[in-house]
């Protein structure tokens, strides 16, 4: 019985570090996605992952770090502004698609030098 508790305990008692690790992994995945994908929407998904990693950090720090509503407040603003940014980016992606019939960012290469 004690052995099972020993195995389960670290899983049940999720601490700050677990959240930070998840956030760091999310952020890294986001960066990798932004750097490797050529599809404009996939790049936006990468950005969204990075933003959510920051939000997760904020919530975790304020949950485990102590007092105040600053962390959750920040995350609420973050969610709203991320949505606004997605709207603007999608509008531009649609404009690009109308012109090029593709959303491959590598094909948008008229401006260079």
């Amino acid at each position, binding site marked *: 019985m004690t052995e099972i508790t020993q195995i389960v305990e670290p899983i049940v008692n999720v601490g700050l570090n677990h959240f930070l690790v998840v956030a760091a992994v999310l952020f890294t995945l986001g960066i990798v996605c932004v750097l490797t994908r050529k599809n404009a929407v996939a790049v936006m998904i990468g950005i969204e992952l990075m933003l959510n990693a920051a939000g997760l950090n904020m919530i975790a*720090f304020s949950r485990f770090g102590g007092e105040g509503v600053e962390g959750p407040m920040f995350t609420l603003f973050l969610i709203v502004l991320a949505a606004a940014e997605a709207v603007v980016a999608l509008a531009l992606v649609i404009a690009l698609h109308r*012109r090029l019939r593709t959303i491959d960012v590598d094909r948008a290469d008229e401006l260079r030098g």
Partner: protein
Amino acid sequence: MTTALPSLESFGYILPELILGGGAILLFILAAAGGRKAGWHALFAWIGAFSTILAFAALMWSTSKGSCTSPESIFDGLVACDPMAVFFRALVLIAALSAIWLSVGSPSVPKGRRAEYYGLLLVMSMGMCFLASANNLLMIFVAMESVSLCSYLLVGFDSSKYRSTEGGLKYVLFGGVASAIMLFGMSLLFGLYGSLSLQGLNAAITSGSAILGDPAGRWAAWIAVTFIIAGFGFKIAAVPFHQWCPDAYEGAPTPFTALLSVAPKAAGFAILLRFSWGLFAQPGTLDATIASSSIPWMVIIGVISALTMTLGNLVAIVQNNLKRLLAYSSIAHAGYILMGVVAGGQDGFEGVALYLAVYVLMNMGAFAVVSAVDRAIGSEDIKDYSGLGKRAPLLALVMVIFLVSLTGLPPTAGFVGKLYLFSALLAKGGTWFYLLAVVGIINSVISLFYYARVMKAMYLESPTGATTHVGSLNSAGALATILAIPTLLLGIFWQPLAVLATWSVSFFH
């Protein structure tokens, strides 16, 4: 810092922002109520211009009444109201008014969507005003996003031109990544020090808390600060966050490029100064040595400064499009101004404030000339400027004044600006500061090369066939001429501006 005012009493301190926001809402309502009608353009432009002028008047009036002349903390500490906020808000408003002037009658702004255009310009100006006075990580983020979102839309505004869309898309993707990186840095900083306000962070950092003694904590702090610099670096177009800059500048409608090249840079530097001082200096001083020994803030900024000016100047040499050339030149100028941030202290900050004021005048002026020529012959290529000295003597002369000023030669304002930056850096006295100054001087020489190329085209080359006629002075040319006057005058009598710049950072003592 006095105790923070609660929200309701704070509204009196943000009159300019309220006016800009009100004007924007009015414009958006008019846009929805039939703003596509042809006859309404003039009305929209007047609403835009009137809001900006009224905001400027409100700023001057409230400052003359003594509000914000000493540092005050409003909205429960979210926003700071102090001389630096007043100075940079004034710069932003002057730039915004000039951009609205350039937009009137410009063919690159779509006719049917003028109301939205001016509305977004006003919202963006409001965001920049808040950015210049933000005092809390949350406020910095919100203000920066409201500037960014409007600029993405305005860069991609001319949907009939493919370049505008492409520039806008590249801008929004780079911007999204930069702000996500900045936010991750902010979340780490919040976690390490448990506060979002700059004062709270400052107290935690300068009290020598245990975090910096621990290797893991020090690493986290370095990462946090570096990530936040990435966000600011994006706004001021510093290397390596500059890639969006030439594409966005070239794609955007020229009147908006003029605003984009000066105002976000001014607001971005304001927040960079406020952040670097607010976070790392001992309370009540500008001495950041203690904090910077544990977090290498100055080293990071110094390296970015050298890289930024070198890359900007070297790449500008090979450009054939004048808007693109000015984009790289504006990157180089961000590098020069960063020297002032590195120097720090009263002198350095004064140099930054003064240089930005001068930069707003001369870069806005250069883009006004580009806008005037673009309106007459529809081209931004340097080869189409050949013989401009004969085709439009006044315009060419005015352009020479701006280019000489951008190079930093006397008797123009640009020389005074550079003088203050370099003397602040040299006064610090240290091998690395001297080295940075040498890099800066070499770069000024390089920059002369490509500015002179434009002058050579204008005066020494004969006009090319198809584009001989530039015509009489249009309203953009008139603005350029008006901006040339202070650019010359401040090169001779810079004392008033220097006094203002000193005042703007004096409360740091």
